[in-house]
């Protein structure tokens, strides 16, 4: 492979050299002439033999090329089926960029212009969770990747696949002076290697093709995670000779890993025999099939379900849903099954953040705990997102969704008439408890109903009223929407950031909305103000590419989580308990998000402070969105 690169580089240099050499023959060659005129010493042979007469030579420098390597790279990208490429432009991938828009026709993939590389990645992250497959992101290998790195980390933590391609110029002899040196690096991927699943730096086009296919396969095999390829600048720009015909290997994806048969049998035995089984789903339903399967498992054994909403796992108004009484059901459980639960330990233990940190189990003595998680197949050392080690009785390193069919069948085989009766009784009690919980939620929502700032319950209820009869998708935000909306389809919720890196929400909503666009779905995001301010240019991207999205600002005028942290510190030290807003609030002046949005080409309305104005404002914004464009309503809200 190295030989090919040298040949490629050699070819380019030959072309340059031929032109240079021709020019040298035209001009007087000072040093050569001097050497040739030097008399031999001591009877030895002349230092330089006389050069033969080259004859007439063309002096026209070759300035164009028909088949740059990047054209083949586009062939590879198209073969992988990417609809879009998200990118903020960068010179280190100028070759690939040009090939995409011209050779590739800017279609499948279409270039989505982003204003920040972190936004590019977060858009890809949101898109991947709706579509269930990765999308391509391009970035500079140095400064672009630095910008992108938090987005990649979020996707890694969230187990979302992203296909990164970064530009770099490895051959120092070909770099333009100045900026290109600051934008070049020996090992481009090292910056993010701790939180990408695989990376490579292909040295030839054939190598690129094989690594691209391998990267796609690795990214999409659970646990799905970001992968990264370096597209060398010379490889992009050097023309392919007619004789070079790299091929794209067959793209065969790996089936997801299922739980071992012994583990499945043991889990089924425990679940069927349990009096109070609890199923906890976090990132369980990778696809719509996962939601169906998980629902089938819950209904088969009439188990209490706690939905941690890392993905859309379970219908929110299903009678078995006990999410509102999670602590109570976990406390009473005799068997707990966690499916892709990010923080199993934190789920079953209570942890106190006081001066002396303490914890105690929530579960009762003797409760059996089972985990099925693909994270156990790929746990890295440096970044500690793997959480504290839980006390499990059974652990399967496998993909939950892939394991569910076998687990359901194993449970069904064990169910006797007696157990069936017990399940029916349990199901009735759970259904009753669910209805009571729903009533409590509605009662809770009624407090501060007419307040200003507007309660988040009121805001969620107003949004729900406007979207409930449409084909909607909550692409950003959670909170009261999770308690009041009726979720029953997989695409209606896509989970959170994974790594809690703020600045994920706005771009991921745009990416998810782009994925929803072709299905005609109404995408709605409850957008935190602080999150938007990291890179508000995403609003421009939504306007420019006509991505229909309703963003409703949850504008509490602060980085509110940090307000509370600072308050905790001040209280602990018994001083300055009125200063928590220093460095944490967004006021003086208040940011005018409606004007910000309009400045980016997005319909903007607000700030809305009277809850009576909210419904009509949402209706106007939805009119805009129904025409295929983004809209934003700024709502000044209570803190949480």
């Amino acid at each position, binding site marked *: 492979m190295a030989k090919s690169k040298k040949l490629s580089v050699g070819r380019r240099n030959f072309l340059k050299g031929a032109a240079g050499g021709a020019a040298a023959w035209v001009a007087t060659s000072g040093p050569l002439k001097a050497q040739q005129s030097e008399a031999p010493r001591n009877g030895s042979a002349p230092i330089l033999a006389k050069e033969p007469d080259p004859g007439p030579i063309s002096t026209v420098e070759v300035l164009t090329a028909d088949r740059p390597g990047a054209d083949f790279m586009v062939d590879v990208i198209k073969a992988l089926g990417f609809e879009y490429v998200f990118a903020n432009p960068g010179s280190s991938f100028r070759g690939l960029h040009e090939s995409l828009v011209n050779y590739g026709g800017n279609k499948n993939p279409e270039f989505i212009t982003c204003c920040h590389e972190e936004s590019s990645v977060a858009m890809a992250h949101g898109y991947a969770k709706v579509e269930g497959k990765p999308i391509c992101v391009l970035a500079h290998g140095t400064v672009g990747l630095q910008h992108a790195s938090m987005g990649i980390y979020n996707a890694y933590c969230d187990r979302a696949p992203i296909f990164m391609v970064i530009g770099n110029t490895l051959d120092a002899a070909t770099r333009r002076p100045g900026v290109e040196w600051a934008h070049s690096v020996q090992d481009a991927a090292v910056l993010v290697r701790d939180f990408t699943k695989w990376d490579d730096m292909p040295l030839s086009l054939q190598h690129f093709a094989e690594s691209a296919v391998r990267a796609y396969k690795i990214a999409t095999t659970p646990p799905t995670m970001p992968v990264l390829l370096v597209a060398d600048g010379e490889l992009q720009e050097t023309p392919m000779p007619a004789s070079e015909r790299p091929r794209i290997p067959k793209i065969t994806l790996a089936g997801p890993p299922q739980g071992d048969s012994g583990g499945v049998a043991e889990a089924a035995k425990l679940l069927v025999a349990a009096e109070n089984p609890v199923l906890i789903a976090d990132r369980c339903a990778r696809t719509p099939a996962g939601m169906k399967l998980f629902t089938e498992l819950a209904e088969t054994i009439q188990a209490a379900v706690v939905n941690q909403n890392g993905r859309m796992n379970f219908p929110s108004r299903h009678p078995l849903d006990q999410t509102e009484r999670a602590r109570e059901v976990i406390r009473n459980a005799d068997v707990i099954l966690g499916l892709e639960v990010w923080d199993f330990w934190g789920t079953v233990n209570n942890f106190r953040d006081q001066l002396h940190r303490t914890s105690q189990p929530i579960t009762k003595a003797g409760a059996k705990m089972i985990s099925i998680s693909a994270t156990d197949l790929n746990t890295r050392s440096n970044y500690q997102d793997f959480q504290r080690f839980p006390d499990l009785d059974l652990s399967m390193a496998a993909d939950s969704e892939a394991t569910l069919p076998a687990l359901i069948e194993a449970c069904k085989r064990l169910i006797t008439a007696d157990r069936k009766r017990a399940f029916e009784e349990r199901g009735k009690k759970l259904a009753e408890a669910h209805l009571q919980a729903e009533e409590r939620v509605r009662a809770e929502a009624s*407090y501060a109903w007419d*307040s200003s700032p507007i309660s*988040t319950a009121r805001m969620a209820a107003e949004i729900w009223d406007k979207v*409930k009869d449409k084909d909607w998708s909550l692409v950003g935000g959670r909170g009261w929407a999770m308690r009041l909306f009726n979720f029953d389809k997989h695409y209606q919720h896509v989970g959170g950031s994974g790594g809690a890196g703020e600045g994920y929400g706005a771009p991921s909503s745009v990416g998810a909305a782009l994925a929803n666009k072709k299905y005609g779905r109404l995408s709605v995001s409850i957008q935190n103000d602080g999150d938007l301010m990291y890179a508000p240019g995403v609003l421009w991207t939504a306007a420019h590419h006509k991505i229909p999205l309703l963003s409703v600002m949850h504008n509490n005028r602060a980085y509110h989580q940090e307000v*509370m942290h600072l*308050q905790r510190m001040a209280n602990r030290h018994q001083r300055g308990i009125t200063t928590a807003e220093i460095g944490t609030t967004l006021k003086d002046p208040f940011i005018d998000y409606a004007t910000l949005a309009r400045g980016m080409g997005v319909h903007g309305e607000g700030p809305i402070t009277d809850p009576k104005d909210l419904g009509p404002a949402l209706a106007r914004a939805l009119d805009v969105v129904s025409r295929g464009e983004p809209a934003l309503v700024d709502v000044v809200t*209570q*803190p949480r």
Partner: protein
Amino acid sequence: MIAMIASALALAQTPAAAPAGNAQNGKKLFARYGCFQCHGYEAQGGLGTGPRLAPKPLAWAALSRYVRQPAGQMPPYTAKVVSDKDLADIYAFLSAQPTPPPAKSIPLLNN
């Protein structure tokens, strides 16, 4: 002997019945001391942060004890930073909060 005095002093610092307080000032203090961050401006509660405190707050003795020495996640508000008088004003604010209409009467909550 010392323990008995300390216990008596403690009781004196947290009287059984709520002392009279100024609800208007209490509302300001509720915001100023950061209580609203977790409990909302109307003490209606915050998702994942703090429970609803009003209307019909806990009995004065229980609430004041908890505020000074919380058993859960709440950061402590000792007498050094929030005086008994200020806490009494806050309690008056909580006690004065109106009861909302029943959820069944709110159409948006019955979708």
